[in-house]
């Protein structure tokens, strides 16, 4: 076909769409003329411009669609007139065929059985609504990421230390690694380093703690995001003293600067030092943020502003790297490059080799990794529910077909063809599908709000969910697919039902078997879903049963960051913290105030290699322990139990012999069977320029990262002695035990801390219990959603089972009447019915448990201390479904047992 002919054909094809949907008689009467006239008018009025032709076509098609809709509504009158004229039957203007089955007729038919209609529509609507909701969420999570350019080329690079077993995969890298990767740029277009940096912004009473990030100059270019205003950082700003510039995120610029268009060049106080605003990022850019990055690295939910990263190779600079690869790079090339770089570092700097390992992954993949199993489980659950709903509605339609078999037989006798009968079912199914689609969209619309509340803290992409046109189109496709699926089964059943079969009514044997099969299928689908839900629920219960190792109730946490310029050395920082702890302890209702970095359950983890006095290790076997700096009040405030020796005291000061308290795991790993007290270790390594730390006490293990991560070797050092970590005691968290019911608010803490230094603004007050809850929020959200899905599935399956049993009882009334007449106990009759229902379900349970056994392995990574084949869960789900089946069958069973045999038998003779 030439392009020109196609151009002419397309408008006609478009116009045919409403025409095809028209009532047949109407179409036969008018279709040819309308189409011919449209062609002529298009040629005469459409002109040459394709815009005019398109506009003309749209107007004509819309008008025709409206006319067709009206024709359906007026259908009856027209059909009678037309059919009468054509067939010559004028008696009452009505021929007993299904020709011209109208939507109106189907609507009336549905309206006569409201319970059936409402059940069917709601069943399908639940399926469609859930599919749409989860589809929207999955779309937001999997497709919409950061608004970055060519995201496939942006890779995250992190430190890889396989010899360190902390249960985490990603470590930060140092300035040395940053420099080498940047300079050996064979595979990369640009490389940038970044780390989180909380700061106190503003001055006077308006100081606030905000989430910032230190980033190297090529950061925005590497990430591939634009600035809405101003310029990115320059290389010369990566130098101490020249770094007093700041770039604002769009949201922060709007909230804090009221979207001031003249903000560029303005001066803001960052940790008390004036900084010049040189840029504002494009909307939506708030990287680095926790969603894309490993949680133990403690990135904020979103970044408010960026500061230049001062390049340094002294001490650990705790960086992550971003690399934008050259286009067309082979997969794996960047990793090879990183391996070569690490080897090179090992050659250049003796001893650095084992610590220079690096790994990479595309940023988006890295971000999705932890979420993907959960989204997959959700989608699987939703698909099961939708399938279940379709099967259920199909069986309802089948029941209805059977109930109308007399009517159908008469229609057939009067000349209706099978196609016409199919049209009855088809139109009804389509109407149910359309109604369910509409209700389902409403459900989805309201469910999105709930989904957002449930998931937003875990998945920032979920914020501001809307039903997109693409999702709406998807929902429509699902609806039509569901309607087609729903219509299909009764149509297949119809195919076999000839006139004789229908007229003899056949006691519904075929229908009964089909219904039984469908009920079995529903139970099986439900069973599979419930096993998955059950496993996740058990896993969550196991998680919640874990002992965190301290008493979180009544603990309040507050984060704060000291400005480095005002607190340049450890002495000044210690002075601040001691004064702040005293001020907090004076707040009424406070029992004990302490400070820790990193705080347990805050997501932060810090580890160090250590030297152990009297031992030597190969480089790769160097012991690694987690360490934290704490105030002596820390153990008392949290309620951590002492096992041996003493705890830390205020007299453990700088200059004195350094001491530390280890946890039980560290004592058992490093000094098995020996007394750990008096042993000495050295943070970092033997060559480090600071002294040995003597172990003076042992405390119980606590959970540091989450309820599901086990305890690892750990040492607590007095914050006043802090030998090594850099920057030490700047970014800390206070944890305060309050008296039960004291109800201390943010303000009390803020005021107390302001008396020490008004330039240091505390962050929000977060109860320790909330911090803990955040560590399992994702699995809780998933479990809640699956429980809702499971409940819906169970409900649908009960409806299906009830329908099948009720139908079977209806068809066997005569048989039961005979039994009762022959002296059978009513209870025995009832029991037979219940047994039939349970047998139907039992087959479904077997199939469903089998399917579950094959599928649950994919849940493995989401489960904690529960096997994917957990016998308990399988047994409980199976038993639950069989009991439910018995319940669903009991009502028809009781009805059967109460039948009066005489009535039933007389009925049978008729």
């Amino acid at each position, binding site marked *: 076909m030439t392009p020109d002919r196609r151009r002419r054909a397309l408008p006609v094809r478009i116009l045919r769409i*409403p025409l095809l949907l028209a009532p047949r008689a109407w179409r036969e*009467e*008018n279709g040819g*003329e*309308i189409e*011919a*006239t*449209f062609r*002529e*008018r298009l040629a005469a009025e459409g002109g040459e411009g394709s815009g005019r032709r398109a506009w003309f076509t749209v*107007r*004509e098609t819309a*008008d*025709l*669609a*409206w*006319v*067709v809709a*009206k*024709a359906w509504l007026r259908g009856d009158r027209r059909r009678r*007139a037309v059919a009468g004229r054509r067939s010559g039957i004028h008696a009452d203007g009505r021929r007993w065929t299904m020709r011209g089955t109208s939507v109106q007729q189907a609507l009336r038919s549905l309206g006569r059985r409201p319970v059936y209609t409402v059940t069917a529509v709601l069943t399908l609507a639940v399926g469609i609504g859930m599919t749409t909701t989860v589809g929207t969420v999955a779309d937001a999570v999997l497709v919409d990421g950061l608004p970055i350019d060519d995201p496939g080329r942006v890779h995250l690079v992190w430190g890889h230390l396989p010899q360190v077993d902390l249960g985490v995969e990603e470590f930060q890298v140092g300035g040395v690694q940053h420099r080498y990767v940047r300079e050996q740029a064979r595979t990369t277009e640009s490389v940038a380093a970044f780390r989180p940096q909380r700061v106190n912004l503003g001055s006077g009473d308006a100081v606030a703690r905000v989430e910032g990030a230190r980033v190297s100059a090529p950061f925005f270019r590497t990430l591939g995001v634009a600035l809405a205003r101003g310029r990115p950082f320059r290389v010369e700003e990566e130098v101490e003293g020249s770094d007093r510039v700041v770039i604002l995120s769009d949201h922060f610029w709007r909230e804090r600067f009221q979207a001031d268009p003249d903000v560029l060049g303005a001066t803001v106080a960052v940790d008390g030092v004036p900084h010049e605003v040189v840029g504002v990022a494009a909307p939506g850019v708030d990287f680095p943020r926790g969603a894309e990055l490993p949680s133990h690295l403690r990135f904020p939910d979103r970044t408010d502003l960026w500061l230049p990263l001062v390049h340094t190779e002294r001490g650990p600079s705790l960086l992550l790297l971003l690399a934008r690869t050259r286009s067309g790079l082979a997969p794996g090339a960047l990793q090879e490059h990183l391996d070569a770089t690490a080897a090179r570092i090992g050659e250049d700097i003796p001893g650095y080799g084992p610590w220079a390992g690096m790994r990479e992954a595309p940023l988006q993949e890295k971000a999705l990794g932890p979420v993907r199993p959960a989204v997959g489980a959700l989608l699987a659950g939703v698909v099961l529910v939708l399938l279940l709903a379709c099967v259920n509605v199909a069986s309802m339609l089948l029941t209805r077909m059977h109930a109308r078999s007399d009517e159908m037989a008469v229609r057939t006798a009067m000349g209706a063809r099978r196609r016409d009968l199919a049209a009855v079912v088809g139109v009804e199914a389509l109407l149910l599908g359309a109604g369910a689609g509409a209700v389902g969209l409403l459900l989805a619309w309201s469910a999105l709000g709930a989904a957002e509340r449930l998931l937003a803290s875990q998945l920032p992409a979920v914020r501001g969910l809307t039903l997109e046109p693409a999702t709406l189109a998807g929902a429509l496709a699902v609806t039509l697919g569901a309607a087609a699926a729903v219509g299909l089964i009764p149509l297949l059943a119809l195919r076999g039902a000839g006139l004789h079969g229908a007229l003899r009514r056949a006691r519904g044997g075929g229908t009964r078997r089909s219904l039984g099969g469908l009920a079995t299928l529903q139970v099986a689908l439900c069973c599979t879903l419930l096993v998955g839900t059950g496993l996740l629920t058990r896993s969550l219960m196991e998680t919640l049963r874990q002992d965190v190792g301290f008493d979180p109730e009544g603990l309040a946490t507050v984060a704060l960051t000291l400005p480095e310029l005002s607190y340049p050395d450890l002495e000044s920082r210690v002075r601040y913290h001691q004064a702040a702890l005293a001020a907090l302890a004076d707040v009424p209702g406070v029992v004990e105030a302490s400070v820790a970095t990193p705080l347990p359950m805050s997501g932060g983890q810090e580890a160090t290699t250590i030297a152990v006095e009297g031992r030597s290790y190969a480089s790769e076997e160097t012991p690694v322990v987690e360490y934290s700096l704490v105030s002596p009040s820390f153990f008392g405030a949290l309620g951590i139990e002492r096992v041996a020796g003493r705890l830390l005291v205020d007299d453990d000061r700088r200059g004195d012999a350094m001491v530390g308290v280890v946890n039980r795991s560290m004592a058992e790993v490093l000094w098995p069977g020996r007394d750990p007290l008096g042993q000495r270790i050295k943070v970092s390594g033997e060559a480090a320029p600071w002294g040995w730390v003597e172990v003076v006490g042992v405390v119980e293990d606590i959970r540091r990262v989450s309820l599901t991560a086990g305890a690892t070797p750990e040492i607590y050092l007095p914050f006043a002695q802090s030998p090594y970590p850099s920057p030490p005691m700047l970014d800390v968290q206070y944890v305060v035990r309050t008296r039960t019911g004291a109800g201390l608010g943010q303000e009390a803490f803020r005021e107390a801390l302001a008396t020490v230094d008004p330039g240091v603004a505390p962050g929000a007050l977060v109860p320790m219990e909330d911090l803990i809850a955040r560590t399992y929020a994702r699995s809780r959200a998933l479990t809640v959603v699956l429980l809702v899905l499971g409940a819906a599935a169970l409900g649908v399956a009960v409806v299906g089972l009830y329908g099948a049993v009720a139908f079977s009882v209806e068809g066997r009334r005569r048989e039961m009447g005979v039994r009762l007449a022959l002296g059978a106990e009513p209870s025995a009759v009832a029991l037979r019915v219940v047994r039939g229902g349970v047998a139907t379900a039992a087959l479904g349970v077997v199939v469903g448990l089998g399917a579950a056994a094959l599928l649950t392995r994919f849940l493995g990574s989401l489960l904690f201390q529960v096997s994917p084949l957990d016998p308990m869960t399988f047994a409980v789900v199976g038993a639950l479904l069989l009991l439910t089946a018995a319940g669903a069958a009991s009502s028809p069973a009781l009805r059967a047992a109460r039948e009066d045999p005489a009535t039933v038998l007389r009925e049978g003779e008729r």
Partner: protein
Amino acid sequence: MDDHLPLTPLSFHILLALADRPVHGYGIIKRMQERPDRAIDPRTGSFYAALRRMSEDGLVEEVDPPEGEAGVDRRRRYYGLTPVGMRVLAAEAERLAGLAREVRGVLGTPGAPGVVGSRGS
């Protein structure tokens, strides 16, 4: 007769287009479009729906294509006025003329009698 009044503008113009001789469907549309005031330009679907309704109401009927006339297309369906349609058209014109007189009485502005009703009701 009064059952049919008032006519919709579209129906009125269909009757008007058929007043002097039978015309096929597209011809009716063209005659409407050729009116100097182009008072009405119906969409094709609505037009045929109206035509069909008027046919059922007995205002128009399908007729044989006129013999011997230039430009007759024997493949098309031609429509003509029924006697009822003719009377309804006249009655509607009278009704509109009455309305026009009333309006002129209120506004006091004389109008050209020839264009009465051309804008429909």
